[in-house]
């Protein structure tokens, strides 16, 4: 039996664990041994996560069928409206200045 373990590596404490590669091992004991050897022998890692590949649940597509742009910053185009608001404000100011 050979299992694939995905290796996630943390470079320094406090940093995110990032995918670094994978190893093949017959069991968890060997997986730990190989991971220590290949990803930790130079003190280059603060922590390693070994995850059996079959345990990874991947989600790779995020369709936006309902066009839910209003929940993101790119869902708003305020430039046009802002221009109009500024124009109105300035013409209102000059109108009231003329009246006074």
């Amino acid at each position, binding site marked *: 039996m050979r299992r*694939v373990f995905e290796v996630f590596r943390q470079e320094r404490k406090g940093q995110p664990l990032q*995918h*670094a*590669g*994978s*190893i*093949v091992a017959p069991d968890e004991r*060997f997986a730990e041994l190989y991971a220590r050897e290949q990803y930790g022998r130079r003190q*280059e890692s603060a922590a390693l996560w070994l995850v059996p590949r079959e345990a990874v649940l991947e989600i790779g597509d995020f369709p936006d069928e309902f066009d839910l742009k209003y929940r993101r910053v790119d869902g708003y185009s305020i430039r046009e409206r802002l221009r109009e608001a500024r124009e109105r404000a300035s013409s209102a100011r000059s109108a009231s200045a003329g009246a006074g």
Partner: protein
Amino acid sequence: MDARTQEFVEYVQSGGQVEATDWMPDEYRARLIKFIEMHANSELMGVLPERDWILRAPTLQRKLALTAKIQDEVGHAQLIYRVVEDLGKPRQACLDDLVSGRSKFHNVFHYPTRTWGDVGVIAWLVDAAAIISQKALLRCSYAPYARIMKKICWEESFHILHGRDVVLALVTGTQEQFELVQEALNRWWEPLMHFHGTPIPADEDPMLFWRIKSQANEDARQQFLDGYVPQIRELGLEIPDPALRKDEETGRWLYTEPDWERLRAVITGHGPASAERLAFRRLSREDVAWVERVILAEAA
């Protein structure tokens, strides 16, 4: 080319990266396997010339440093063969093809190491040439390979430093020690000029088309010359090519055209040490076959 492939090509050519589980054209996969497998083979075969000098290293400190470098290179082979396995070619098949001569490894590992000077020149200059290629691979369109390269480049920088230190110790030593380096450099210069491959134009290179590589062969060689010719010359060493000079107008290095026929012969297994190295790899593979059998049996 069908529409899906066309879309894929546009994606990678605009800087897009591909993961192991993504769809990819068969040709892309085949080229990746061939290229990455050769890289892994080279890391594995590359330790043999240096291995010859572990027992003959001049001091304990040098012996430890050389052993650590060799351990790194074997580690690189492990990491890179994993990438090949995920693309669909098992490690055992890679090793079978390697020892039977069906797959290739880098030209520089087909040459013998005659003196301790070779060890310095290899760790300094061969690793320097290699790191140029490997740094360019950080932008490879195949993301798992690019990620692995990050760790590898980090370790390579120690190799270059170790090699430079060995060379510096020799060139500041006796006349005999200085000549050891000069003589090694004379022998290694042609393999170094061969290292980045024939100057195939960028728009004809399929590896660039698929963005597996991001740097043309000649650009890599120019980068090597730019970085290292001044460093070699400042030590009083002479580069064995009277035509070598930088054209101030174009900023490109001019040099005597290397013998590309010889490069072809060397990488197809006709180098001075090719047969010996492959025989050794075959032998050690048979020697350690029982380890794998035991491990798999125990885990079953």
